């Protein structure tokens, strides 16, 4: 992965609001990039870049909600903090239902915004770390032989070796050998650990 620092992407059509946000975030040492419209952001979007989105919910052209929808469609995981006006609670609720981290009403205390941004950035880090972990597990699973994969599935279903031997029509001893190899290949320290990894791997991306 490219080692660019996590960036706060600000999308707001109001010049003054946008510029003041840039200055504020800069003053607390956060890397900021600003966009005057949702479309402008979409055009330069790079899913690989870490960071979070500070998004005005109302904008001419593509609104904040529409941008969120678009990002969801392409499975982008960038966390969003919405900026809303007074009368926008229904829209904020909708945004939350669609996975927004939080929303904040204008005008806001700087610390509230910064807290939410940090929260979002943390979530982004978690997301990205989770993604990394999942990729590793999947790679390990791909190294299993078909028989080992069968054993893994049955073990994680909670079946005892003797039952698995019956199911596969092999000796109990053979099951034990496959099981040991699965544990080794997957790097599982316990059965519980193995089960967790399988669940993680099967999670939707």
């Amino acid at each position, binding site marked *: 992965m490219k080692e660019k620092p996590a960036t706060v992407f600000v999308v707001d059509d109001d010049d003054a609001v946008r510029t*003041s946000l840039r200055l504020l975030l800069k003053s607390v040492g956060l890397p900021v990039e600003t966009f005057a419209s949702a479309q402008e952001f979409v055009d330069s979007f790079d899913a690989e870049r870490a960071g979070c989105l500070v998004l005005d919910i109302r904008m001419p052209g593509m609104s904040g909600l529409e941008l969120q929808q678009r990002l969801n469609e392409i499975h982008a995981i960038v966390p969003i903090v919405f900026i809303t*006006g*007074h*009368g926008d609670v229904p829209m904020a609720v909708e945004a939350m239902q669609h996975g927004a981290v939080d929303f904040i009403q*204008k005008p806001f205390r700087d610390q509230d915004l910064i807290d939410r941004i940090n929260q979002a950035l943390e979530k982004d880090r978690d997301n990205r770390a989770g993604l990394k972990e999942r990729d590793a597990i999947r790679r390990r699973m791909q190294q299993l032989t078909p028989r080992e994969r069968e054993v893994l599935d049955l073990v994680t279903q909670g079946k005892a070796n003797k039952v698995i031997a019956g199911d596969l029509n092999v000796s109990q001893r053979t099951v034990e050998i496959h099981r040991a190899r699965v544990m080794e290949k997957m790097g599982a320290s316990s059965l519980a650990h193995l089960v967790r990894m399988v669940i993680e791997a099967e999670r939707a991306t």
Partner: protein
Amino acid sequence: MPTNADPATAASHSQQVTNELKALLDAAVDGVIVIDHKGSIETFNAAAERLFGYTAAEVAGKNINMLMPDPYSSGHDQYMQNYQRTGKARIIGIGREISAQRRDGTIFPASLAVGEIPGSGAKRFVGFLHDISARKAATDALRRERDRAQSYLDLAQVMLLAIANSGHITLINRKGCEILGYTETELVGRDWFEQCIAEPHREAARATLAATLRGDTSLLEYSEDEVVTSDGEIKLIAWRTTRVTDEEGRAIGTLSSGEDVTDQRHAEQALKRSEQLLRSAQAIAKLGNFEIHEPDGAALWSQQVYDITGRDPDSGALLLKEYAADCVHPDDRARFLHDWRRGVAETGRIDLEYRIVRPDGSTRVVQTLAQTVPSNDAQSLIITGTVHDITERKLAEEELRLGQERLTHVARLSTMGEMATGLAHEINQPLTAIATYAQALVRMMDSPSGGERAELREALVQITSQALRAGEVIRRLRAFVKNRAAKTETLDLNRLIEDLRVLAEPDARVNDVRLILTLAPSVPPVAADPVQIQQVLLNLVRNAIDALLEAPGAPRQVVVTTQLVGQDVEVCVIDQAGGIPPEVAVNLFNPFFTTKATGTGLGLAISHSIIRAHRGKLGHRPTPGGGTTFHFTLPQLPGG
């Protein structure tokens, strides 16, 4: 027959009788003529001789018809034969007036009495003839005199009526007959009251007659009475009545001259009624009139002018300058006199509105319309006109205007309410920027470096500008919603629309609609109330935005254009939404008609009346390709 009679004695006796008879005949004043059955004259006395100028000898044995003028003379023989044959007499025993002819041919009137002389043998007749020339002349003179008097009576254009004590008509002239519709014979001798006075009035009329006869009334007493004509019509007669007395001063009746005043009285009543009508019309309309003579200013004012000004008509007619000084409100006086003189001098027409002060201190607003009319005298001028109290109308107009203003204001507030979300957003934006800048500044100053000077300065500049931005929105908002009297200014509509953007755009933005202004490079100025025109524009933009919200697929934009169309500046507000259904279009400008759940139905109705009050037109047409274009015009300023 006596045989012992002495013939001589008998003869002398007979002679004596004859002589006596002759003396008797000759002494008679009347002419005596005896004729035989054939009409031959036997006896002709001295009076006859004097009457006719013949001697007895001359006429003896001649036919009596020699004494008659034609045609009597030629008819007399036939007459006598008829009598002898039929025994039917026309004169005998009756006596009549006849015409007789003297020897010299002159004819004179005479009365004739004829008797038949009894005896054996042929019939003989005696006639007594009396010259009645003198009597006749007197009678004729009297008749002529009477006829002349009658003709005077008949010539008189008044009714002349004489009534006896009994109430019977003794005389009535032709005019009287004409008025009453009877002939003279139908009236004379009849009871006047029965004949000509309607039953309900008879008693009183008889009493009046009695009073006149008693002499209780003055000479030529005046009275008015209704009479009934032959065809039942009621006529009003004005009478002058006097008592008629005999030589001894006893009343024997009354003589009256009467004039038919029915039409006159009707005319008078009609005039009186029309005067009353005029007066009450003036009172109801609070409209008085006047006539003023210049240059002296002498004036005639109708009662209503006095009523309006609260002046006493009995204190004498005010001169124009007195009217100005006493009645016209001091603040309006100079203008009143100036405009009056100018109107008289320049156009001959005066149209003034001014206040008057009544003696009780109350004020009325009046309008005076007047014009000069030609006068016979070149030196003077007559001005006729009206004084109209229009106070109530003015109050009502003011009331209406205030009501309209209140309603307009309500509509404005309502429009503003619909735009509240957008406007709140519009104010919130600069506040957010300010707060954010300020907090960034604090953080920068708190940082170890204390921040870069240029950045700190820029933030402060931005704070100022954003504070001003918020202030501007609030200022415009306040100007728009403030309850205010209408006031007309010279306006550049382009500029007005640009200014309106501050209020209109936030609303568009929150509804995700673009507001596009496509204004003509320049438009001539118009005279208009800026707030009212903004109200119309905002209302139209609002409606367009609402229409777009109902039309999901439509291009989300509202275009406002200006252009010069003829002498008018036209403003269009164009959307490409769903258009207006016909059933909505019909009611579009009706107050309280709305298609919006929370609409008041005032917006378009008031916009319509605002534009109309500016002498412009507000309408709509389909936008080519779909949607609606609302357009209104305002007349450009003359010379603008």
